[in-house]
């Protein structure tokens, strides 16, 4: 049985500080959605409200056709995986996993059977009688995962579950989490500050800032088509150049950056372009050339990237990072033109 999670118009305050501002998200049945953002953006607050540990100022939380908003935390039936594992130190691995089943009044033999087969799935049956203190970090997180999954919750939530593990284990564990989540088809909410982790594990990612969702989309769309300047710089668009349209000729729009550099854009490629917009590119969206239509620049430090050179450039429109072909190396101090590569560029509404 898979159900959807709906968070509607959630607001929350700590004292007089508003930490969530009218936040709404839907997680479809069986989907894994990540909340991604730096610390203090409200992602953990959102998770704790859904879990029932915090009370929102306003808004509703629904799971399927159940309204969770006023339900006490222990009656919500949500599987939680914590950053610091939060295993019961006084119980064995087996007892940890069986804990939730015990609360549900499941008889001992059945409990042992189900907890046992869950431990099997995470590959820890041989450690069933150990205490958590005798486990490694990765093993602890597997036990925590088994403990949350064994109760077959309609919703799984992860609070930075991999932050305490080393880099290699982190990659292995996220694959494992994703496989288990997909196999069970459990609707999941995943909180992390690690972009790579969020993008690799999620169906959709909500990028959050200051208590709001800036964009909720698939990793592919977020990476290629950020909706606003915040998301663009979050996913690595180094160059955000404000532009103003100076003339329109059919589908072709000519716009000017600060300092007078003119560039033209096709509305057939970018869709309708407003009079004021921001040109967003990564370094590979602007190519340093001898000549062409682009932003005039003085090239600075050259870095060898293997597939291209990268230059720190000074332009009339500000500092810009651009790439250059290996076949055409420029020395620092050379004047060049930074030519946009249309398919690597985004045109953003500065109001968005």
């Amino acid at each position, binding site marked *: 049985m898979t159900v959807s999670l709906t968070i509607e118009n959630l607001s929350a305050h700590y004292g007089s500080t508003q930490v969530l501002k009218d936040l709404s998200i839907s997680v479809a049945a069986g989907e894994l959605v990540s909340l991604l953002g730096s610390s203090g953006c409200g992602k953990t607050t959102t998770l704790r409200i859904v*879990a*029932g*540990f915090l009370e929102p100022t306003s808004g509703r939380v629904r799971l399927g056709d159940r309204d969770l908003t006023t339900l*006490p*935390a*222990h*009656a*919500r*039936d*949500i*599987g*939680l995986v*914590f*950053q*610091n594992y*939060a*295993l*019961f*130190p*006084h119980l064995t691995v087996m007892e940890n996993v069986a*804990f*939730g089943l015990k*609360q*549900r009044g499941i008889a001992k033999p059945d409990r042992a059977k189900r907890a046992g087969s869950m431990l099997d799935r995470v590959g820890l049956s041989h450690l069933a009688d150990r205490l958590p203190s005798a486990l490694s970090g990765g093993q602890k997180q597997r036990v*925590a995962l088994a*403990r*949350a999954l064994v*109760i077959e919750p309609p919703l799984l939530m992860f609070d930075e579950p991999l932050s305490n593990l080393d880099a290699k284990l982190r990659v292995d564990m996220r694959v494992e989490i994703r496989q288990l989540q997909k196999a069970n088809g459990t609707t999941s909410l995943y909180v992390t500050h690690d972009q790579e982790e969020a993008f690799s594990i999620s169906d959709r990612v909500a990028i959050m800032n200051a208590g709001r969702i800036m964009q909720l989309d698939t990793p592919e769309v977020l990476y290629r088509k950020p909706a606003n300047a915040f998301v663009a710089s979050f996913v690595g668009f180094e160059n955000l150049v404000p532009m103003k349209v100076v003339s329109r000729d059919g589908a072709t729009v000519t716009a000017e950056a600060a300092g007078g550099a003119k560039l033209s854009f096709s509305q057939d490629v970018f869709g309708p372009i407003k009079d004021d917009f921001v040109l967003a590119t990564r370094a590979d969206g602007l190519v340093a050339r001898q000549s062409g239509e682009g932003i005039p620049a003085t090239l600075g430090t050259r870095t060898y990237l293997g597939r291209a050179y990268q230059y720190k450039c000074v332009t009339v429109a500000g500092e810009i990072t651009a790439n250059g072909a290996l076949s055409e190396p420029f020395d620092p101090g050379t004047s060049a033109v930074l030519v946009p590569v249309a398919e690597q560029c985004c045109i953003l509404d500065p109001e968005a």
Partner: protein
Amino acid sequence: MTTRIHPLLGAFAALVFLFLLAPLVIIVGASLSDTSYLTFPPQGLTLRWFANIFEISAFRNTAITSFQVAILGTALSLLMGIPAAYALNRYRVELPKWLSTLFVLPILVPEIVFGFSLLKSITIGFGMPVYPSLILGHALLVLPYSVRVVGASLAAFDFSVEEAAISLGCPPLKTFMTVVLPNIRAGVIAAFILAFITSINDVSISVFLTGPGISTLPIQILAHMEQFFDPTIASVSVLLMLVTVGVMAIVEATLGLTFLTK
């Protein structure tokens, strides 16, 4: 290979140990002396002063009172102290800082003042009978140990473990009993022992709160000494010491003594 110790340091350490242990040796010696007055070294050996304790009904009765008061007072202090320590740690951020200081007041206020104010308030003010006011007084006296020692255990407890239990369907009170308590067990036992020993040895609170027909053993020892200066006092002291040593031995056997000093 042995570590080199400066002879003066060695001598100093020996003096400290002598200073700590000599009074105990003297008390044990005096309790065995076959004389009708306190003396050391003992002249002749006898156990009759120990037998004498049990013949004096006042010692018997006050010993029973002392144990009852110590156990009930300590239990009452834990009943108040454990929830207080829990709240102080769980809501550390939300609660004002001075609140935790409030719970150590019985240690900070001179005991004689504390005892007198208890007499004024609960015995005279509320007219509470002697026995319950004695228990309540001791409970308040040892409350700081309950709050502090249990609090130290809770400070090392990860409260997300509690949230994990709740998320798995365990109601809050049951979570406290089955998840939080087992993990602070050592602190609760340590608090009990410290509080028990403090209570059973207390004079200054008890002196105000004891009354007609109800007294504690330390008060009785003082009273007895004012009238008789015989070795019975020494043998009662030895028995009190043995109780303390016995409690420590149980702790050592079950938990290891180190956890008391952690």
